[in-house]
């Protein structure tokens, strides 16, 4: 997975346009009978992304148009600004994905799109565009759950990975511990009771003056700090071994800062970042390893934006090695929002015969696992 190459250009409006390519997959075999090529669209938050994926595991093109720079000034993603950018960028991303893969619409077997969870206005751009393509081209449409996409990102770089396995999903909006029983079959065994892990990173980063986005900023600052400098409490949930809670930790950090300010003591930003991060990593990794041990699959994967946190990756690598567990993680660029993962998830849905109707709608709080199949009416 070290052979990933990212071509980046910053556009006039501050949006960063990226084309992600795997060096080793530069030359792809010509299409064979029975191959399934899916064009996938993702627009659930502040990335407009389009990818073309063959047979679920070969990414032919992976285009990401990231607006993060536009939202930094507001301290978080502004839904209306995100939606407006999606509509400006989406066609260019689709065109670039086709060009990068040297394909035309004729080569595409199905159109896939994220339909939830996410920002409703942002989701609707991708969903509307995908439905128009599916209708005009007379191709099947497959609605994909965003988190199932994140989990499926692991299949792209780990060709040998097959269910069942345990997956830790941690991002700005989600903290789930999931058992992937089979392709497209998920059981949630733990989730956050309050803030998502990524949300806690953002809030703490803001409180200690690191700004947005919190995840990468804390990750960087923590490298200079002592993770044992400050001990913050860990929240255990009675009767729900695998659930998380991060709001108590966030309050403890804020109290610590207030206390220091009252006493006029300086705050060591790096120590604070490192100690906070260690606490989160302890909880996430601890729960994940416990779950793998209990379910006995000997396989752990991670997904979501927080999965690119270096401390979490290092910690899980070590803990998995110590416990004889195979550890799978996507490259950082596949941990953030992208459409390749949506194309991968869609492929396994496609094989199962899942097709969405042209009335597919964006579902901002779409639950994982027990998806609302009524959105998947057969065409």
């Amino acid at each position: 997975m070290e052979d990933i190459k990212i071509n980046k250009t910053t556009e006039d409006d501050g949006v960063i346009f990226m084309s992600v390519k795997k060096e080793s997959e530069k030359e792809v075999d010509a299409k064979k009978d029975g191959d399934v090529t899916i064009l996938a669209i993702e627009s659930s938050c502040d990335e407009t992304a389009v990818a073309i994926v063959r047979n679920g595991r070969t990414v032919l093109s992976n285009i990401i148009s990231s607006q993060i720079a536009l939202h930094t000034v507001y301290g978080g993603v502004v839904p209306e600004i995100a939606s407006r950018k999606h509509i400006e960028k989406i066609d260019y991303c689709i065109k670039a994905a086709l060009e990068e893969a040297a394909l035309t619409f004729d080569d595409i077997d199905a159109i896939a799109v994220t339909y939830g969870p996410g920002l409703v206005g942002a989701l609707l751009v991708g969903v509307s565009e995908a439905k128009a393509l599916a209708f005009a081209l007379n191709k099947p449409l497959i609605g994909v759950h965003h988190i199932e996409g994140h989990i499926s990102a692991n299949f792209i770089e780990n060709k040998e990975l097959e269910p069942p396995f345990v997956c830790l999903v941690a991002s700005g909006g989600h903290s789930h511990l999931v058992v992937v029983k089979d392709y497209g079959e998920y059981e949630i065994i733990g989730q956050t009771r309050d803030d998502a892990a990524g949300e806690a990173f953002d809030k703490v980063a803001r409180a200690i003056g690191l700004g947005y986005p919190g995840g990468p900023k804390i990750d960087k600052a923590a490298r200079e700090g002592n993770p044992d400098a400050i001990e913050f409490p860990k929240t255990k949930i009675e009767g729900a071994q695998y659930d998380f809670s991060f709001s108590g930790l966030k309050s403890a950090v804020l109290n610590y800062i207030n206390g220091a300010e009252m006493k006029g003591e300086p705050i060591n930003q790096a120590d604070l970042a490192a100690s906070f991060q260690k606490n989160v990593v302890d909880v996430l990794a601890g729960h994940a390893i416990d779950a793998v041990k209990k379910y006995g699959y000997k396989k752990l994967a991670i997904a979501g934006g927080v999965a690119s946190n270096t401390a979490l990756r290092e910690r899980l690598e070590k803990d998995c090695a110590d416990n004889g567990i195979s550890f799978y993680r996507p490259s950082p660029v596949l941990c953030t929002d992208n459409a390749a993962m949506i194309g991968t998830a869609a492929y396994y849905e496609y094989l199962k015969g899942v097709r969405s109707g042209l009335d597919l709608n964006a579902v901002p709080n779409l639950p994982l696992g027990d998806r609302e199949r009524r959105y998947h009416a057969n065409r």
Partner: protein
Amino acid sequence: MKILAIDTSGLVATVAVADGDVLVSQFSIQFKTTHSQILVPMLDAIQSNIGPFMNTIDAIAIAKGPGSFTGLRIGAATAKGLCLALDKPLIPVPTVDALAYNLYGTEKIICPMMDARRSQVYTGLYTFVPTSSEGTMEQKFTMKTIESQTVLGIEEIADKINEIGKPVVLLGDGIPVYHDKLEKLLKVPFSVANLNQNRQSAAAVAALAMTIYEEGGAISGMEFAPDYLRQSQAEREGGSADGGKKKLPKRPGVIRIREIRAEDITEAAELEKKCLGAEAWTEKQLLEAQARDDTVYVVAEKTGKIVGLCGVRNVSGDGEITNVSVSETCRNEGIGYKMLKQLIERGRGIGITAYTLEVRAQNAPAIRLYEKLGFKSEGVRPNFYENPTDDAAIYWRKEQ
């Protein structure tokens, strides 16, 4: 020509297929279903009745805005996807214009109003004028825009209607919302369009799109984005209080650039005085200047106040730009740029082919603005200005 038209700007989701003078199909729904769920199924339903038609159309027309932000994007993304898949051009149609087109042939004033919340409406003023073959079967009408589509307070649009003083026909989803207010505010005879004419209709979008297409108004769907006429709330409010150290520049409200009117003169002269001091023109000078046939004056208006002024005079094809002023409280909002762009656009209408102006050599922000607009320095008049003494830099912008 054959057009597929889509309008999802308001409460109605409406699509139509028009072929020359024939409305092949129109499908409108105003019900509880969301535009997202209903729009493509409507196209599918048309297709199942008239057969595969998508490849037979010449272009796709879309109500480009204003309207509900999300509604506009559902229509826009759908239209863009269709254009991309089928390699067809897109014809963006102003939503309010298309609403007015419902009343084709009406010689009264037409005022569509779409509820824009916050006591405002997306609106405009239109009327139809008969073309040359009046009194024959071939007689057609042209829609004349009196006030281009914009966002206005309900009182402001009522004032504009009263000012014209002619009977008006109202339509749109803003009418039931502001019914009582309008009844009090309007001093002219008015009526409300009937249910067959009073909401967005894709047939009207298609009909107007044909005219726009003939005028060269088709674009590639790739480059299309809706015309919201309003910024997002976050942009209006200029970033959140805890949103990091960098603050956004103060964002403009809705800025309107328009030609000067006699009643603006007093305010414009005051603005000049504040900006230009001793070099400012008097009210009388301004009044005379703007009344001439060889001049164009435009003002920038923000929340009912004049915040910018500039003018140009045609001297045998060369346009001398004068009186460039922007209110101190509204600098860095791009007002100067927008005003001058319009001035140059309008100057063309009175035969100006090159523009020139003088600026204090020390006035760096103004010089940056002129250079951005394509002006080039062509000379200096030493010590031209007084208090403080400064050279005048002479700038020219010549049309290619």
